[in-house]
């Protein structure tokens, strides 16, 4: 009994087993089906892209921690998830040096400049993707064909929709193959099935709530459906929009990023609606075929505003009560 040295801390003395690591690696696990699909569809080159992105993100995280003299956080899983998300958001034939540049932008410019994990305003992987898209538009929009042997590339269904119109786009894609994933696109965004399986895991672990993804998808669906009904010849049907592009990847894995989404239910609904409407507007009338990345980044910028609205409401409630009592 003498050997026992008592230690004092504050209650509670039992804690959840969840940690930053478990949250992050569970997100990575939820992305596993999409990653496996990417390798299945686009071959070993896709695996290489995944590995390069993850390794360089972790490497830059370590570098930034060292420069900023912070405790090492490179293995806490957040850099791993950023790297994985970045890889799934680019075509599989992207030159490797571009991936490294993208990883640098994600970790250094989008995350550590703001103060590291928990302080970044914008989703790091999306910032990197958009940076690559506007810097290297040709490389970022030449999509390898699934199961291609000779690096054959073609336009994505959304690209065809933008340039050649609805009829050509609908002809290029059968919706079921879009659902399973055998279409042109970024590595991780083609297979809706794999993404839905991963999202199911996140819902089961309660790491994401239903508000953001469902308001986002719902508003895109409704918006495109309305215009499809008005003029079916000029606007693609809503289901086409659902399965193509990065909509599902964005809705379930990028918009729901804890750090860059609002905390309150009300805020999450506004955020989801905003993302959905912006995505639809960009897709229907914007200069780019795909709008989800821009939509989420724009709404990321509004999160502090949405949160402060919530904060002021809280203050108003308690202020009123403080005065009455």
């Amino acid at each position, binding site marked *: 009994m003498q*050997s026992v040295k008592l*230690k004092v801390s504050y209650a509670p003395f039992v804690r959840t087993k969840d940690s930053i690591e478990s949250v992050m690696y569970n997100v990575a696990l939820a992305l596993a089906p999409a990653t496996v699909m990417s390798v299945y569809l686009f071959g070993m080159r896709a695996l290489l892209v995944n590995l390069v992105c993850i390794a360089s993100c972790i490497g830059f995280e370590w570098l930034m921690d060292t420069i900023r003299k912070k405790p090492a956080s490179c293995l806490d899983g957040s850099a791993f998830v950023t790297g994985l998300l970045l890889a799934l958001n680019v075509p599989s034939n992207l030159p490797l040096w571009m991936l490294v540049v993208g990883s640098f932008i994600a970790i250094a410019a989008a995350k550590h400049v703001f103060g590291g994990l928990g302080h970044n305003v914008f989703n790091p992987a999306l910032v990197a993707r958009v940076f690559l898209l506007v810097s290297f538009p040709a490389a970022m929009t030449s999509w390898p064909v699934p199961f291609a042997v000779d690096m054959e590339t073609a336009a994505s269904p959304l690209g065809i929709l933008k340039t050649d119109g609805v009829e050509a786009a609908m002809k290029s894609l059968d919706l079921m193959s879009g659902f399973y994933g055998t279409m042109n696109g970024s590595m991780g965004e083609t297979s809706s099935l794999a993404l839905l399986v991963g999202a199911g895991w996140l819902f089961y672990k309660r790491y994401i709530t239903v508000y953001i993804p469902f308001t986002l998808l719902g508003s895109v669906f409704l918006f495109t459906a309305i215009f499809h009904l008005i003029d079916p010849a000029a606007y693609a049907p809503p289901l086409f929009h659902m399965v193509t592009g990065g909509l599902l990847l964005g809705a379930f894995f990028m918009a729901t990023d804890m750090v860059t989404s609002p905390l309150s239910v009300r805020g999450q609904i506004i955020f989801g609606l905003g993302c959905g409407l912006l995505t639809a507007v960009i897709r229907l009338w914007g200069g780019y075929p795909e709008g989800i990345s821009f939509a989420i980044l724009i709404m990321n910028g509004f999160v502090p505003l949405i949160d402060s609205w919530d904060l002021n409401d*809280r203050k108003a409630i308690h202020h009123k009560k403080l005065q009455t009592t």
Partner: protein
Amino acid sequence: MNTFRTGGIHPPESKLTGNSPIEVMPLPSELAIPLSQHLGKPAKPVVKMNDEVKKGQLIGEADGFISANVHASTSGKIKAIKPHPHPGGQYAMTVFITPDGKDEWAEGLECAPADWKRLSKQEILRKIKDAGVVGMGGAGFPTNVKLSPPPDKKIDTLILNGAECEPFLTADHRLMVESPEDIVTGLEIMASLFDGPLKIAIGIESNKQDAIETLQRYALPKQIDVVSLKTKYPQGAEKQLINAITGRIVGEGELPFDKGCIVQNIGTAVAVCEAVCRNRPLIERVVTVSGMEITRKKNITVRIGTSFSDIIAFCGNMSDKTNQVISGGPMMGKAVFSLDVPVVKTTSGILFINNLALGKSMERTCIRCGRCVEVCPQGLAPWLLANVAQLRHFDEIQTLGLANCTECGSCTYVCPSRRELVHWIKYAKALVANRQKRKSA
């Protein structure tokens, strides 16, 4: 199944002693009885060094309106009156008694008193006050004060708290199974203090099915409801229990009687029964001794003032891996800093744990997952309170509902970043109180 409206968590129940009958622990060789075992002013000592006292004799007299009497737990000699470690974490004036082994009751206490139904309300309240009965769930609010709300507050619901939502603790559970008659009698006595129609309910979490069945047998014939509650923490917190049973919300700055409710603890009901029916002051209580690091986990009846080290000796031994000894439950208890601390009226359990999540800088940055907001039963934003507390913006923090936090610890429990949210909130509360004290001085 009834439950409260917002938030809540479900930590592993770890009720290791739910089926162990209550044992009586023999008298220790020394008793240390603090004069402050309740909320409010410490009692005034009415004995001197070397005085001979009898079991149940008054040694500390209630000092002021919110205070409670303290009695000798056995017969013996007063060895000293000095500051001594208290399970609440501070030092408190403590009366040390060396037992003479005879364990003799003080005069007038061994006689069987009259039927309580013939006593007036004033007499009942007097008896409860004299016996030093306080809320035995943890806060230790003097029971007689709680049972005499201001006359303009109409009480229509009396709730007995059998939720025992803290993990590990089973003291109330065993009491409900083993002495349902005393509990129901105590509840009836308390109910007799109020005029007009009164709804009486006992709220029990559904993980204690045997307690629900036992109490139903005794309570239902007397028009007392036994309400089965969902197993969810903090179901046993006063405000949450009222919400679960009546649907009413006790708001910011309000007390339960503002909503016509009074909540009492199971142990308190037994103590009221002992005080009124048998004239016995509160000198012993049931304590759960549990946790992974003690050999024999059990529920024991101990005298108030028995030191933790004596209890360890009675329950086998604690392992070398023990790094924290907790007085109370693991969610809202206190880690004691010395094994000399005694059991007091509010000690519901003693836990011996090997807490691996300990370290000086375990806190990491908030990843804004929003879980603390999700689980807060009071609808607050704990992450925000903690951030503002860290920045020491004490004017702002009060507008964020600081006073509304009940310190249940749910937010700290769920935080994946290991942030000490409730500790930061407690820190802000202490500094806000200190600032007000300095301003008024």
